[in-house]
């Protein structure tokens, strides 16, 4: 069974200017209960890789540089 790509708009935004993942910070990635945040290998910054969000907020609350914003997922908004 062949697979198709499908796109979704993700709720968690990371401000790459503020993100210090390139200094070794992995706070948001560590605290996510669903493991949806990963380092983008091209930028070295955190980003939301999987649209599987509980909008629970630890990533935003624990980010040392206030780089993370959790929006309510579009389907719930």
């Amino acid at each position, binding site marked *: *069974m*062949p*697979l198709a790509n499908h796109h979704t708009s993700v709720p968690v935004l990371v401000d790459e200017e503020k993100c210090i993942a390139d200094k070794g910070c992995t706070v948001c990635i*560590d*605290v*996510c*209960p*669903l*493991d949806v945040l990963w380092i983008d290998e091209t930028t070295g910054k955190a980003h939301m*890789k*999987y649209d*599987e*969000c*509980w*909008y*629970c*907020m*630890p990533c935003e*609350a*624990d980010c040392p540089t206030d780089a993370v914003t*959790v*929006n*309510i*997922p579009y*389907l*719930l*908004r």
Partner: protein
Amino acid sequence: MNIEDLTIIDTDVLVIGGGTAGPMAAVTVKENNPKLDVILLEKANVKRSGAISMGMDGLNNAIVPGHATPEQYVREITIANDGIVDQPALMAYAQRSFPMIEKLDAWGVHFQKDETGDYDMKKVHHLGTYVLPMPEGHNVKKILYRRLRRHRVKVENRYQATRLLKDTEGNIAGMIGVNTRTGEPIIIRAKAVIMATGAAGRIGLPHSGYLFGTYENPANSGDGHAMAYHAGADLANLECYQVNPLLKDYNGPACAYVTGPLGGFTSNAFGERFIECDYWSGQMMLEFFKELESGKGPVFLKLDHLAEETIQEIETVLHTNERPSRGRFHDGRHTNYRQQMVEMHISEIGFCSGHSASGVWVDETGATTVPGLYGAGDMASVPHNYMLGAFVYGQICGESAAAFASERGEINLDRHLIDQELVRLRAPLERQDGIPPEQMEYKVRRLVNDYLQPPKVTRRMEIGLERILAVREDLKLLKANDAHELMRAMEVHSIVDCAEMAARASLYRTESRWGLYHYRVDHPDTDEQRWFCHSRLYKDDNGNMAHGTRPVAPYIVSLGEEKDAYNQLRVKQAANA
């Protein structure tokens, strides 16, 4: 890969799940016997995992001397559960409730106190005073983490347990699982295992259609229920679903226990109270459901009559604790507590003893029916446990497991089981194409909503079961592109197991009980003659899902007049309905 290629990690006690009960269990083992090795395994990261990742805004079931007695509590929970409870297990919680509050208080958890430092208990119902607010309860997880470090509990984050292991005599022997970042299998051999895997909160589909917009933390996908089942443990009363009142679409709790003491309430479209039942129970949810569907619906959280100072207090508590993004949700819809009532709805179904009564059967020592396996928190069968019950049963299981592990000799692992599981774990990554976990998950959860959501109809549930079994046949087609998708694929296995359990358990009990939770339209009456018992669900010797009953243990607290009072409320309600 087979077992010879894997390193086996040894420990005395293994705790699976690092949310609420799990850390308490691990710390308790160390407090009891510092010499025992303890591993705490967590699918996410213990710092922010489980139902209380952002804290908790209050205790709903605090039994504080001078405000309520253990006997009173046991009586009320017995009534709320239509008599089907194991009172010794309830009493074990009730008696330890206050010492646990004192312990958590000493650890630094903030409970609301009056101006002289006494606990500031709130009376919400007329029968007992059990609500202790925690307006600054956002630091609970930090405090647990501090305790884990202090006792040097070995924490393994990002490991998903997938099957429990047994020895050749049928005792528990550890678990096999997988690293969710690398896909590497892991085997832990343990003398005792405590499961604290949370609710099965990803069985039904939220009304929004967003797979992860569940009432429960969606990491709680029922892995523990499925693992216990496959290990041969008894599960109890699974037909007594969890269905909760919540903020529509946001799907978070309405927090009646926060707003209630401050004067807020659940209302119909006319701003009137409508709930007759005085207990958090399936009966209450049935009334909620009927109002929702009636001409007076939908249902709302009403706060617009409160003073500005009170609203500010509510906003501060609700927007910093438990589910803090709700403020953002309201902003997006321009909902202001001062002017608008907030639309409510009911949740998708789940298994969660924290709010209802179903789960892996445990007795008052936290023991399941498999020797050496213990269960605590939302996954274990002690009803209406909420957060404090998870802590208490975490502690009880920690004590029991420490004692069991100390007595245990050498363990001979059942290797056949391990080889089988390694094949299952490898399959989704090895397949060239197939069905993505997300798609299969959506399908089975949509079937659960269409066919299993109460009110329950026999023929509809039979069709649902057939359809779920058809999805089970598709499990071998699951395709994962990376370790993350492998985790989701293994979760789909758990979800299908739980969906089948929900269907079969609901079909087995041919009566209605627990209000909406098990409302069977074609068996509308409660049959005390035949069904005043727990239902059992277990895997029989041929590997089939089997049923049985378990008698309700003799009450240690008689119901006396309260039961009559409850029946009176019932009669009145029926007349209104």
